[in-house]
């Protein structure tokens, strides 16, 4: 399974690589990383049909996670990939907007990795 993680915090990459070291080693999951909404769009453009799941932060400078979600769901890829939104603001407003824009799931920071793994298994 190919997952694209979108977050402006670069250490998110190290964290995911460590947290999923077993899954990466066994080639169960392959991770790619983008550090802004814009970068994510470029990636998706170049790797169409590759990423089946996108994990995106909402609160990023420049293009926000919600805008990215909107673009992915409207313009990119058929069928659109599974998009899970992650944010530090776990409030109703963001949740509703994300749902409305077609987010498949909604996670709050700090990410609970065991439960994320469960969710990924379910998608798989």
């Amino acid at each position: 399974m190919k997952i694209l993680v979108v977050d402006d915090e670069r250490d998110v990459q190290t964290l995911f690589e460590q947290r999923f070291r077993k899954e990466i080693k066994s080639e169960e999951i392959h991770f790619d990383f983008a550090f802004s909404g814009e970068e994510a769009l470029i990636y998706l453009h170049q790797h169409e049909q590759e990423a089946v799941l996108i994990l995106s932060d909402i609160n990023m400078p420049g293009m926000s996670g919600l805008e990215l979600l909107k673009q992915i769901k409207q313009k990119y890829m058929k069928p659109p990939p599974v998009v899970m939104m992650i944010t530090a603001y776990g409030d109703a407003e963001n949740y509703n907007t994300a749902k409305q824009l077609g987010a498949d799931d909604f996670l709050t920071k700090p990410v609970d990795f065991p439960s994320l793994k469960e969710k990924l298994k379910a998608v798989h």
Partner: protein
Amino acid sequence: MGQQEPTVAELKQLLAAQALELQQKNRELEVQTALEEVRVRATAMRNSSELAETSAILFQQLKVLQINAIRTGVGIFDEANDAMELWLTTVSDKQEVLRILDYVNLHIHPVFEKIIAARKENRPYALTILKGDEVKRYYQTMSTYLLLDKQTKYNKQEYYYSFFFRQGTINVVMDKVLSDEECGIMIRLAQVFGLIYTRFLDLQKSEEAKQEVEAALQELKATQSQLIQSEKMASLGELTAGIAHEIQNPLNFVNNFSEVNTELIEEMRSELAAGNAQQAMEIADDIKKNNEKISHHGKRADSIVKGMLQHSRNSSGQKELTDINALADECMRLSYHGLRAKDKTFNAKMETDLDNSLPKIYIAPQDIGRVVLNLFTNAFYSVMQKKKELGEAFEPVVTVKTARKEEGITISIRDNGNGVPPKVIDKIFQPFFTTKPVGEGTGLGLSMSYDIITKGHNGELKVTTKEGEYAEFIIYLPAKS
């Protein structure tokens, strides 16, 4: 020739005339000395209670001039209340000089009513002569007002003289009539005293005015420092949510990486138990790397909290060697997240162009931090306004740039918002000037920033702008401020 010898009679006459002239000159000298004594004391007067001293000097000096008064005094009219403030001096039975202050209504005794009448008629003085029982009755009347020594014997006659000056009278109570010459002296005395008293009042007025101005200044200073504090608190409030968000991110990393490390240590143990030293070493390297991350993010949270405390604290103005790039970056993030937390629809692209060769310089970090935060907040506000007007088509961008200059550094904060209209550009650094709606800005941000940069750091704060296109605020800080 032809000059006749003067006769003895003529010589006598001449001698007598000369003696008289000498006597008169001598007297005049005495009078002038006495006037000078009174004048000197009265001129030194700073407070009206010192009128008692003046009255005592008057009493003594009249004695020198052989004007032996029963009492002397200075009276100051209280026109509004038809009354008089009386500073009296008399001699007790034991020859002690007594000073008495009282405040009398001008209608309690004919002596005072006479003063009113004479003053109305513009006479130089008022005189009332009391005889026999009248003297006794006067003291009986006055005893309820004046704390005069109970006189064992009353004079047969008493002469109450009041010589006028503009604001009051010089009072002399005699047991005999004053000669014309003596009256003349008293009139002169009253004139001299009047001038000094007028001067004294002017002095008092200017003293009062000075005190009023000083009080107003104090009040203004107090209000100003309150305003500065509330401006600081307002901007802190705006930032609190941003700060909370900023702390949450590093804390998440600290928690996550330490959990990962716990897992990795377990894995390392099992690899070691299985004898896979190579794998164990690789895991150890990861643990070390993660530990560095934990330390890095811990320090990041620490610096955010410190920054927040610095922002809320009253600045000591203490200058410290400061990394301007780190400060600019931190302020940008804080203000961005602060606005972001307040308005979730808000977003802007942040660009940094930080000069890595920038030397650390001595500045008051809280103060410069506040300036930079304020400029960022303004920049984000401006692009947000434009976004509201233009919608999707507009991409808000805020840029921070630092650069090394010959004798210092510059920090530039640029936004592609609506810019500053030319008609207000001269006013933006003035206190209380704001273009924000009531309640959204104090109008103190930029004026305080200007003071911090120019007065506090000998630097410059400049703006370049094009209405509708951009605004760029440039801070110049000398390396040695």
